[in-house]
């Protein structure tokens, strides 16, 4: 038989076609879901007073953008929530890495702290939000603190485990090449724990947003959480959805940035082989 591979142009055409198909079906799902919601609400099968409707959500967003919200500009409120989450996230990631790597490299210290870590991890951390509001007041700091405790533990555990799993052979090799204990930690152990750490960062930005928003539910002067709580109090489901939409945009943007960062930090990793011939 004569060898007759597909030409590059043909393969490309096939792939493009596949992509267009997937995207149009994805769009169709969204249209079907939102469309039926809108129709059911318009026909009063779903009571728009309780369930809201897509057009109402868009209207609500338009009002917030043009005239501001009852608690000030929508951008200011979104910004407050974003920076509370971001500060909590950064603090949690940095301290989580430092403690995780330190304890994994110092087995005696790890043994001493193990029961305390277990206990503090078993506390449902959202409850701490109330304590933080009492201690730190209604301002942003209490929200940053709640976001921090939510982020700290997953990052800490991953950094700890990643450090423990560092290849002994690589550590031995580095020591034979002249690395000090500190160099082994920074040049060998930390890079090998990085894929564990970045994996935990993906979930933990979500936790940071939860921390900021729950903190705002519990008592705040500004923020999307307060906006949601206010909308709930006013029986305004569209307001709740509109704020949710903004939060989703933040979470997706953060996820995209973390993926970029991960690709940069882990560029030495073999790329996943994908996309065989269709």
């Amino acid at each position, binding site marked *: 038989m004569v060898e007759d591979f597909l030409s590059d142009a043909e393969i490309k055409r096939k792939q493009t076609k596949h992509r267009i198909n997937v995207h149009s079906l994805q769009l169709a799902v969204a249209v079907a879901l939102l469309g039926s919601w809108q129709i059911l609400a318009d026909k009063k099968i779903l009571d728009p007073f309780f369930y809201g409707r897509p057009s109402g959500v868009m209207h609500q967003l338009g009002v917030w953008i043009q005239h501001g919200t009852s608690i000030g500009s929508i951008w200011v409120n979104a910004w407050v929530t974003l920076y509370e989450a971001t500060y909590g996230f950064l603090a949690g990631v940095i301290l989580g890495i430092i403690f995780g790597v330190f304890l994994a490299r110092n087995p005696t210290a790890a043994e001493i702290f193990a029961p305390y870590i277990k206990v503090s991890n078993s506390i449902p951390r959202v409850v701490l939000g109330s304590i933080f509001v009492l201690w730190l007041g209604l301002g942003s700091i209490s929200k940053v603190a709640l976001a921090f405790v939510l982020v700290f533990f997953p990052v800490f555990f991953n950094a700890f485990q990643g450090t423990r799993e560092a290849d002994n052979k690589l550590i031995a090799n580095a020591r034979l*090449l002249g690395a000090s204990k500190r160099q082994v930690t920074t040049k*060998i152990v930390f890079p090998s724990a990085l894929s564990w750490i970045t994996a935990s960062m993906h979930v933990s930005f979500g936790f940071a947003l939860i921390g900021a928003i729950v903190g705002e539910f519990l008592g705040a002067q500004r923020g999307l959480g307060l906006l949601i709580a206010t909308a709930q109090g006013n029986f305004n489901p569209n307001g709740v959805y509109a704020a949710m939409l903004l939060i989703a945009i933040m979470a997706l943007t953060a996820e995209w940035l973390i993926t970029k960062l991960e690709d940069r930090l882990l560029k030495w990793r073999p790329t996943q082989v994908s996309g065989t011939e269709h």
Partner: protein
Amino acid sequence: MSKGVHVKFSNVSKRFRTPKGDWYQALKELNFEIQRGEFVALVGPTGCGKSTALTLLAGLEQSSIGEVSVDGTAVKDIDIRTGFVFQHDATFPWMSVANNVGAGPKFRGLDPKEYRPLVQKWIAKVGLVGFEKHYPHQLSGGMKKRVALAQALINEPQLLLMDEPFSALDVQTRSIMTDELMALWETTGSTVLFVTHDLEEAIALADRVIVLTAGPAQVKADFKIELARPRKAREIRFTEEFLKIYQNIWEVLRDEVDIAYQRQLIAPSEK
């Protein structure tokens, strides 16, 4: 370089705890010496404790009884004058080829301006020019081994320890690497202890072949290999002289291999 004893194992015994909690004895009253500048191959059946001897000499582990000494001083910890090439890939996956090769000088706190030309020189010596910016996962097994060799040799170790360095390679690459190692070693003159279970490789490379018994390892026999240097490992193995040496050593080694194999059959779960 002055001659004389470089490495000495005196009555070295080593035991380990097995995961089951029993003791496993790897070495038993092991005694041998290596002269400075000598290339010695340690051969023995699988699991006999060859690698253990190396880790003691490298300072990665301590002997239970007896003493391992380098230049008359007992080995208590890692000595950076000793180089080590591992059986499996131990290059740092997050460092480029150039950074892997330069890792030793960097760890030792040398000035990058000083060691960068050295890195380039060693990359050229092991034939990896053009791959400086590649990461290990982008290289073949043989290329990774070359990185590992350059990484160890750039520090000009007085003592080079190699733990079955080529055993993970395919047969063709392996014979090429044997030749390349030979050529590199002939320019450095360092003392080498090379652990292998491949007798051909051992004879082709070494000045002396030490045969160990099935574990716990003791020296069973010690052969001087009087083949002329420089050797071409790929061709030498077809000469009559080579075959004769091979036969002599194999006679001795075979019994130990049988013993080790029988044990595996009796206790398949134990290692």
